[in-house]
């Protein structure tokens, strides 16, 4: 079954295909582009640490960092590894693991058909041995070390550990040197069988491609798979933070901070929730906000200041980060501004300007094939379509954004993380 989904304003369209193999496929034909970007992803990331296939007796708990480890290992095969195969076509290939997804991708100017075949084939052909697992522990061990020296990474994970008591979002995506030492081939296969079923995955291809050719390649490479249903244990989480302050000395010249407000994850109408929450953050903290300009003038923040609605499967928080010699004062000023907006509301002018700014920025996202493919997979995993956010701009109301400011900035669930 396939649908053609159009957006008149942008003059863009894409196909959504329910492939016979059980895989969801998205194709965006961009004939005026010379290259192609493809992303093949699974709804599986670092937070998926305890699960069972429906019908199994007991849950399996896996070592921290195994989703990321699996991502590295999938590139290997009994014969040529995936990097060697892509090298023969000239494509650049890569992969990443986040909290709740793992994605494999390539970008190329030529030979997209051949590259797509390699992408589908290597992701669907796991090959793990004890020997290759051992080798990878050295490489990933160095990747972990690298992140341990990265103050931007550390300030975020210290914050997540300061916010969450039990939710696995608090663990490092790559795990620890100790946890990855517990990984073996059998555990990798068990994760693979559970989460790399076609019904849990999506493919998006954007660029100088033809939909029918994409389907023909999928027909050739992908076998029909019966869906695998799995169950997970997501630990109970209170709405208060573990601590309101956490600090680490890394000897940096410019101290870094991250402030988090823990929210209750939203499960319904996620597209609307995303837009109104991002609008709330924009009105409060973006470059057009009075608060931003005041903090900048007072010497409290610099160009690195930013905000994000950070949410995924089972977790949700508002994240504000930057660099400052006085992070406590930044937190207090933000808290005071939230209080003011909670009682006074947002002016029409401030609402309109944020709306216009965010609409423009959202249109920018339709420029590059990589962001198109990425957003096709992302929005599907989040339960909406690529154009849905743009369509909402007409109907979103100021009162909804004011409600976000009243409800989501929960003081009990606030933590400040500082790297000195």
């Amino acid at each position: 079954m396939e649908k053609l989904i159009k957006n008149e304003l942008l003059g863009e369209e894409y196909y959504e295909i329910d492939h016979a193999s059980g895989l969801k496929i998205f194709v965006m034909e961009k004939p005026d582009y010379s290259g192609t970007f493809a992303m093949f992803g699974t709804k599986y990331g670092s937070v998926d640490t305890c699960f069972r296939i429906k019908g199994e007796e007991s849950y399996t708990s896996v070592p921290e960092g195994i989703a990321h480890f699996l991502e590295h290992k999938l590139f290997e095969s009994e014969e040529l590894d995936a990097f060697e195969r892509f090298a023969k076509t000239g494509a650049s290939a890569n992969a990443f693991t986040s909290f709740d997804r793992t994605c494999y991708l390539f970008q190329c100017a030529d030979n997209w058909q051949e590259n797509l075949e390699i992408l589908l084939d290597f992701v669907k052909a796991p090959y793990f041995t004890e020997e290759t697992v051992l080798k990878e522990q050295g490489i990933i061990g160095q990747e972990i070390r690298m992140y341990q020296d990265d103050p931007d990474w550390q300030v975020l994970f210290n914050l997540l550990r300061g916010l969450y008591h039990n939710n696995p979002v608090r663990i490092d995506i790559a795990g620890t040197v100790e946890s990855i030492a517990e990984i073996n081939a059998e555990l990798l296969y068990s994760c693979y069988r559970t989460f790399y079923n076609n019904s849990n995955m999506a493919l998006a291809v954007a660029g100088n491609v033809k939909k029918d050719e994409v389907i023909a390649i999928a027909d050739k490479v992908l076998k029909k798979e019966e869906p695998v249903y799995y169950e997970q244990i997501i630990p109970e989480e209170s709405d208060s933070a573990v601590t309101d302050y956490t600090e680490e000395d890394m000897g940096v010249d410019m101290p870094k901070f991250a402030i988090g407000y823990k929210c209750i994850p939203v499960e319904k109408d996620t597209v609307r929730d995303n837009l109104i929450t991002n609008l709330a953050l924009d009105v409060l903290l973006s470059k057009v906000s009075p608060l931003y300009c005041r903090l900048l003038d007072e010497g409290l923040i610099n160009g690195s200041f930013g905000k994000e609605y950070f949410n995924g499967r089972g977790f949700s928080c508002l994240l504000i980060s930057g660099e400052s010699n006085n992070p406590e004062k930044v937190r207090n000023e933000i808290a005071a501004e939230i209080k003011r907006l909670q009682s006074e509301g947002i002016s029409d002018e401030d609402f309109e300007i944020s709306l216009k700014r965010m609409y423009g920025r959202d249109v920018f996202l339709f420029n590059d094939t990589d962001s198109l493919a990425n957003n096709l997979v992302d929005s599907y995993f989040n339960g909406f379509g690529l154009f849905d956010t743009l369509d909402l701009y007409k109907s979103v109301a100021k009162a909804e954004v004011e409600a976000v400011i009243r409800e989501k900035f929960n003081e009990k669930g606030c933590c400040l993380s500082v790297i000195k």
Partner: protein
Amino acid sequence: MERKNIAPGVRLFTHSTAQFKNAVVSLNITAPLDGDTSARALLIHLLARTGKDYPTVYDMNRKLASLYGAGLSASVKKIGEAQVLSLVLTCLDDRFALKGEKVLNEGIALLLDAFLKPDITPKGFKEENVAREKRLLIEKIDSERDDKRVYALTRMTEEMCRDEFYGTDRLGNREAISTLDGKELFRVWKDMLFTCPIQINITGNFDKAEAEKLFTDRFTALGRKTEDIAEIRTEFISEAYESRTVTEKQKVKQGKLVIGMRAGMTYEGDNFPALKIMTAIFGSGTFSKLFMNVREKMSLCYYCSARLIDSKGIITVESGVETENAYKALDAIRNELDAVRKGDFSDEIINQAKLSINDSYKSFSDSVIYIDMWATMQCNKADFRSPEDYAAQMKDVSREEIIVAANMVTEDTVFILESEAE
């Protein structure tokens, strides 16, 4: 893609296309790396943040937001021994404005005013703006150095090029920044207006004749004289006299190893295609010898890669390794380069390097940001060439030429950041 002269020392690059949802317009100013490097780096940020018509950060940001979230940002690059200072406008294409506004024209006016109509008094730039930018620039320098990978590469470059202008940080240094004032910045701004080569890039959906007229008029009106325009040259040192190792200790979990090499180039473009392919075989990309052997086989590191900086004629190799393995990794990297010198590589890897380079050149045309970046990287070159022109150069490079290129490479400086026992 084309480029032409529109006024003394002013070039205009245009790429008119309806492919993208927004346009990117940039003003790129080239200057030598000299005593004014810090002042120029500060000035370009100041110009992007406020202006005569938008005297506060709030005013400027509100104006940009009203143009559908247009962006006006400053950036500073080092291209060879030139400091390239850019003001970059990203702006929605008029087709997508909800009420038919002419967004791009307004955006371009804002960009030109940022450079030509700053907020100055008879005494120069306003001290409150200067003070803010001093703080922000110093914090940016500090923050960049907190990234250990950047720190190690910067330190290697400082050591390797300690007697060349290339050893200068593109943002200048804390001491020089802290002494700047509004009057001094006014002098530097005037100097930029009349003596620095300027390249304007415009990529997106626009009327070419109209844009050309607009920019020509504004820059002709300045009254720049050809004889005043600075000529900026880069010193090429083709060979290292000896290899020097510098080590430093810090409280880090992972050590860093950076190697600087002279590529055998005596001028810009010298032996470029062979060197580009040689560097790719040696250490760029997942097919390269460094990736396949030092990472995959020896399992020594997560990253280990080489890069050719052709604007200066050097090759850098970067890796993150355990301190106890640093010399083992150094030996392994040297062995891989020796293997290339001896011709110990397959025809297949030559082909892979060529395919990969070809693919990356061809990919430029799909991104409005990359096209602007490409044009900027070319701003000091006498003749403009497109990514396709570069790709075409690579086809005929032979195995012998690659071996000759590898044998011209000499190791100059090794920098090791060691982790201090805690």
